[in-house]
């Protein structure tokens, strides 16, 4: 049993931070303050938090289109993340990336990819860097069940396996890619089973259980740091909302049952964690309430910061294309 109270409370804090951040995002999308596409991470918090708490600050990760949670899980700045979503100059990417590209290099995030699977090789390259530089930093690419069908995933995992690179491939299996069930789209029963083809460990984990995620990723990280190569971890989880908040107008026929959604909501990762803390006497209700309240203030502050921040100046359009600027028209 994990008994490190500081760690357990920090897990809770980060999961709640993601949840409240995402709830605010929904409001801002509805109010038209956030435009474009926004993919909600609500329901999946334990996956990113459990995994990132098993990492050091100097470990690397890459994310995908559904990666509002990852910079928070990795300990990134919430103000800058919110400002990015509002397209402000103070945002993580100076307003150039937006919702699908909340990269925070200051906490080891090498970028989120809107193109599925595309950032998995990047993580493999970061792990190659660790080997070449003689350090033990691990790289964790996060990707969905859908993206695990991209060639980039299969090529990357084989490359990492033959070179024994310190990578933890982390599949966030929320069971659907837009409207397509992984049961129809993945030939094996579990995505973790695919590890067999690459001769590396593959573990299926309850993605609603932050501690289970933490323990599985910790084991894979230890293996990676010891030079024993990559692992594949599948966090079985669920997204409460539809694929994309901003694209609600793309109406589709029902692809999942309401009962299924309800059933998964009963296994809410934050509630599971809170109940465990209480039942094991690790935390009091008061301490938990304090985290909720403190986090709500933090999200309110972040929203205020984002709203008050300036938009980028027109000159910014041509900035950051090259290391040394060249004339562009």
């Amino acid at each position, binding site marked *: 049993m994990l008994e490190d109270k500081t760690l357990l409370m920090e897990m809770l804090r980060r999961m709640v931070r993601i949840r409240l951040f995402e709830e605010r995002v929904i409001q801002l999308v509805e109010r038209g303050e956030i*435009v*474009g*596409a926004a993919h909600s991470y609500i329901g999946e918090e334990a996956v990113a938090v459990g995994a990132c708490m098993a990492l050091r600050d100097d470990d690397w990760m890459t994310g995908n289109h559904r990666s509002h949670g990852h910079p928070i899980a990795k300990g990134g700045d919430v103000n800058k993340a919110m400002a*990015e979503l509002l*397209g*402000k100059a103070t945002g993580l*990417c100076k*307003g*150039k*990336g*937006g*919702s*699908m*590209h909340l990269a925070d290099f200051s906490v080891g995030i090498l970028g989120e*990819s*809107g*193109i*599925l*699977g*595309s950032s998995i090789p990047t993580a493999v390259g970061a792990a190659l860097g660790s080997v070449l530089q003689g350090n033990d930093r691990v790289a964790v690419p996060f990707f969905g069940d*859908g*993206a695990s*069908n*991209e*060639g*980039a995933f299969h090529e990357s995992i084989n490359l990492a396996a033959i070179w024994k690179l310190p990578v933890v491939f982390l599949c966030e299996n929320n069971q659907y*890619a*837009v*409207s*397509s069930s992984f049961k*129809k*789209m*993945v030939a094996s029963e579990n995505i973790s089973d695919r590890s067999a083809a690459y001769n590396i460990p593959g573990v299926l984990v309850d993605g609603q259980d932050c501690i289970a995620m933490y323990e599985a990723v910790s084991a894979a990280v230890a293996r990676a740091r010891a030079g024993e190569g990559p692992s594949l971890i599948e966090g079985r989880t669920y997204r409460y909302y539809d694929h994309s908040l901003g694209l609600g*107008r*793309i*109406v*589709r*026929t029902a*692809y999942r049952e309401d009962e299924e959604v309800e059933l998964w909501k009963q296994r809410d990762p934050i509630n599971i964690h809170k109940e465990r803390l209480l039942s094991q006497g690790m935390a009091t209700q008061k301490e938990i309430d304090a985290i909720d309240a403190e986090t709500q203030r933090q999200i309110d502050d972040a929203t205020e910061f984002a709203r008050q921040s300036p*938009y*980028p100046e*027109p000159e*910014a*359009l*041509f900035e950051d*294309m090259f290391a040394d600027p060249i004339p*562009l*028209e």
Partner: protein
Amino acid sequence: MTQTAEQTRNITLTQALNEAMREEMRRDERVFIMGEDIQSGVYGASAGLAQEFGYERVRDCPLSENAFMGAAVGAAAVGMRPIVESAFCFMWVAMDSLVSQASKMRYMFGGQVDLPIVYRASLYYGGSMAAHHSDRSYPLFMHIPGFKVVFASNSYDGKGLMKTAIRDNDPVLFCEDRTILGARGEVPEDDYAIPLGVADVKREGTDVTIVAIGGMVPRALEAADTLAQEGISAEVLDPRTLVPLDRQAILDSVAKTGRLVTVDMAHKTCSAASEIAAIVAMEGFWSLQAPVQRLGTANVHIPFSTALEPLCYPTAETIADAARATLE
């Protein structure tokens, strides 16, 4: 267009594409469609196709673009006529199948094979979708020999060109511009098809030719309205297909007006607009009374922020300015 109101219906470009695919699937059972989440589509261009034709002919694919865009090549090579639904920016992960196989097979194997494939490429831009989702690099497919490139700007053209694309025996990149897919236009009841390589004059004029592509056509027409109020008569010409390209129509128009503005929403450098400017510089030089004006998207990736993204693309205002510049 010679249709009268009684014989036409007012439908969106999306609906027009849907009708074209539906009618061709009824007409020819070798036609089938592959894509992501197309069976469940309710409003998109593939809406209702699965219900009518079943899941064998309307196939949901895993997120494996290189595999299914490449599988289209194989299926076409053995006598099927696949339509592949995707978005331009998702084609990057399938470039090997598209370039090494689809574009090269016929030529490299000495003409032994037909490859009747339509690759439908949605172009998202102008909607705060940021760099990964806003690519409009269709001129790459003009640059790579072996693709036909179609870009419809209204419902009538969309339906007629989609039918031709499906009946064509070569790989066709069919661009679907999200900024205009919801626009309505008149479409005849009767079956019709529009040949590839025939441009269309969307508005006649005598002072300056504006060649505009896809979503730039409505912007060019708006610019022409503004210019008309200033006594400038602009002709708006829509090539409709970029490969093959109706060079003669462009040259004829420039011969009449003596001035050229070319507009597209691809990045300026090596754009379709650049190619058209080059053709006119080489073959229409003696008709020109002013330097050619070429408009396109700024040579940067598309930024997310609403403060920056609109600065990237040509607008009715910048098109009108460019036309005025040719008359100075």
